[in-house]
């Protein structure tokens, strides 16, 4: 029997599913003319789902016999995901206006991806995890090749699809091993079975599951797809990939590591430490030679994922809270940075993505340059911007968990990372002006950019609030 409490606990998913289906019908009957209406309705649906998060926790934390969790952790992650998804929808129309390629399905696919991501972060069972992951991935593959006439976009979609299916296969193999050796697909069941020692088979399953999830957060050594997909996908889609699915996959990774594989903590800790180190190093070094800002953002996201994983490597409630705070701040920085990147259009309104074209931007577009500088400084981790607090929290948690060497390495590498962020600022402010951009940006882009910039600059005022929210989220896992 389906209990009402279970249904109320998944109210956000129900709202999004219902509105996704209705929007699909509007899109089917209205055709391309309905694009604007569908976009705004999709944002409203995400907003409604976000508001319904307030009530969903009251009926949790366990719904559908443990398949779904509606706890503080899932509410925290879902709030971030819905916000980022809404921003990705709002940022799209101006970009696609040049090619006339925006169709109403864009918003619909993002809504369905949001359902999948919501399922990912509130999974209490390997099956929920997989179904949510596939729902999100399928929508993402299509979004990556949304500009199907564009060769690079199609290539990005195909690459993402092939490698993503491979990762899903690896993940499924790991899940089947875990199921075979523990006799349960539920996270708590797996944790109980692992309680009396971790067998070889369980260890193999753990490694494969973590490998599959590492692909989804694009952590080294499973990062190969990221630069190509980020570069090829339409820029609003890249903004989406860089924000919402990252939070969802990171939330999933944290939940699986703590809730399901908690008793095997010492085993996965070394894997996470290695992945974090490799991601930080590779993301910092490989970004230096990039000429396309979208590729640079891809390497930057690999780098950031490494830093976020430092918190998880600690394996303590404080570490998990730091990881979740990091993701929240990272999402704001990413959305803001992409709101800037989306305004990089030449005089004819055609999007450009070379770093060289940014040269001397400060002389023509003062506001845009300032925003760029804020986001780049923040990503580099310069205090007092918000990005500094994110890094501070994860290193603090790592040191508290006796991972001083890891923290020291991370700090050293963030100096290398700072080089390419600062290089962009130098190009904008101190180089000879290149061909000027379009004189004015879109209103929506400007509003989102300004809002993110304000949060980044005055973010430390929000710190008590953010700390409380992430601490509550982390506490619900332990």
């Amino acid at each position, binding site marked *: 029997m389906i209990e009402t409490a279970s249904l109320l606990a998944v109210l956000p998913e129900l709202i999004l599913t219902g509105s996704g289906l209705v929007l699909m019908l509007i899109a089917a009957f209205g055709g391309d003319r309905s694009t604007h209406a569908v976009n705004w309705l999709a944002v409203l649906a995400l907003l409604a789902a976000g508001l319904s998060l307030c009530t969903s926790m009251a009926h949790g934390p366990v719904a559908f016999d443990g398949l779904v969790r509606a706890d503080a952790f899932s509410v925290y992650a879902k709030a971030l995901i819905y916000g980022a998804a809404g921003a990705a929808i709002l940022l799209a129309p101006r970009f696609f206006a040049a090619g006339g390629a925006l169709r109403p399905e864009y918003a619909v696919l993002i809504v369905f991806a949001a359902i999948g991501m919501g399922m990912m972060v509130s999974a209490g069972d390997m099956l929920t995890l997989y179904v949510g992951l596939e729902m999100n991935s399928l929508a993402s593959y*299509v979004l990556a090749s949304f500009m199907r006439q564009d060769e690079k976009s199609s290539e990005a979609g195909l690459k993402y699809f092939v490698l993503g299916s491979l990762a899903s296969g690896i993940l499924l193999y790991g899940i089947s091993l875990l199921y*075979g050796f523990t006799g349960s697909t539920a996270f708590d069941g797996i944790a109980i079975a692992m309680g009396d020692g971790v067998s070889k088979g369980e260890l193999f399953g753990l490694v494969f599951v973590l490998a599959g999830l590492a692909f989804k957060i694009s952590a080294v050594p499973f990062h190969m797809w990221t630069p190509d997909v980020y570069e090829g996908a339409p820029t609003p889609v890249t903004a989406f990939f860089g924000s919402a699915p990252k939070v969802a996959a990171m939330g999933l990774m944290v939940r699986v590591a703590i809730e399901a594989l908690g008793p095997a903590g010492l085993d996965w800790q070394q894997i996470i430490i290695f992945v974090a180190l490799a991601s930080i190093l590779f993301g910092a070094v490989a970004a230096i030679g990039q000429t396309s800002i979208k590729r640079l953002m891809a390497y930057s996201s690999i780098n950031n994922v490494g830093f976020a994983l430092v918190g998880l490597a600690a394996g303590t409630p404080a570490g998990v809270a730091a990881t979740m705070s990091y993701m929240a701040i990272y999402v704001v920085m990413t959305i803001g940075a992409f709101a800037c990147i989306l305004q990089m259009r030449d005089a004819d309104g055609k999007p450009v993505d070379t770093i060289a074209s940014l040269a001397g931007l400060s002389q023509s577009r003062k506001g845009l340059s300032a925003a760029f500088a804020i986001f780049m400084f923040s990503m580099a981790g310069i205090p007092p911007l918000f990005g500094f607090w994110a890094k501070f929290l994860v290193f603090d948690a790592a040191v508290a968990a006796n991972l001083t060497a890891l923290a020291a390495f991370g700090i050293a590498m963030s100096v290398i990372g700072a080089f390419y962020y600062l290089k962009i600022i130098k190009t904008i402010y101190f180089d000879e002006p290149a061909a000027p951009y379009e004189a004015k940006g879109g209103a929506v882009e400007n509003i989102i950019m300004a809002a993110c910039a304000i949060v980044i600059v005055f973010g430390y005022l929000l710190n008590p609030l953010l700390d409380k929210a992430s601490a509550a989220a982390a506490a619900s896992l332990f």
Partner: protein
Amino acid sequence: MIHVLAFYLFAILVVSSGALTILSRNPVHSVLWLILAFFNAAGLMILLGAEFIAMLLVIVYVGAVVVLFLFVVMMLDIDFAELRAGFVSYLPFGLLIALVLLAEIVLGIGLWSAGPVELAQRAAPANPELSNIQAIGGILYTRYIFLFEAAGIVLLVAMIGAIVLTHRARGGVRGQNVAKQNRRRPQDAVRNINQPVGQGVEL
């Protein structure tokens, strides 16, 4: 006795139709032999008491996958004689794969007879009173209803994706206008004339 007889009947047919699948010259015949092999494999499954898998085999493999094969074989212009030309050069590779598979079977049987794999107690042993289909249906539509519905949405997303990526508005297509068709009366479309002999027809 009848079980043994049925087993050997199905087993021989599976093996021989499998062999004919790769040996027949005409690719369409190959696909048809493959269908026969699947049907007999379904028979073997029923002998094992796995009637759900037997039905899946028939519905999914015969009904969907093999029919798809058939479409591909008939629609694509593949020169099978040319494909076969490389048989000798690929033979060592094929033999290698066959050897690997054989080793896997031997290993699998060896491990199985060496003792059960160290599996934990299953959380919920199946009720022997129920048939497979009842057991699966009972759990799929109650405990796992959330995932069942979610899987439906995954399929919907796949469908939307396929349409988004491939659908384009074609020019010069005559769409069907049902209202216009219904509005049309016989007197608008049909003319009765008394055609005089020896004169041309006026259109």
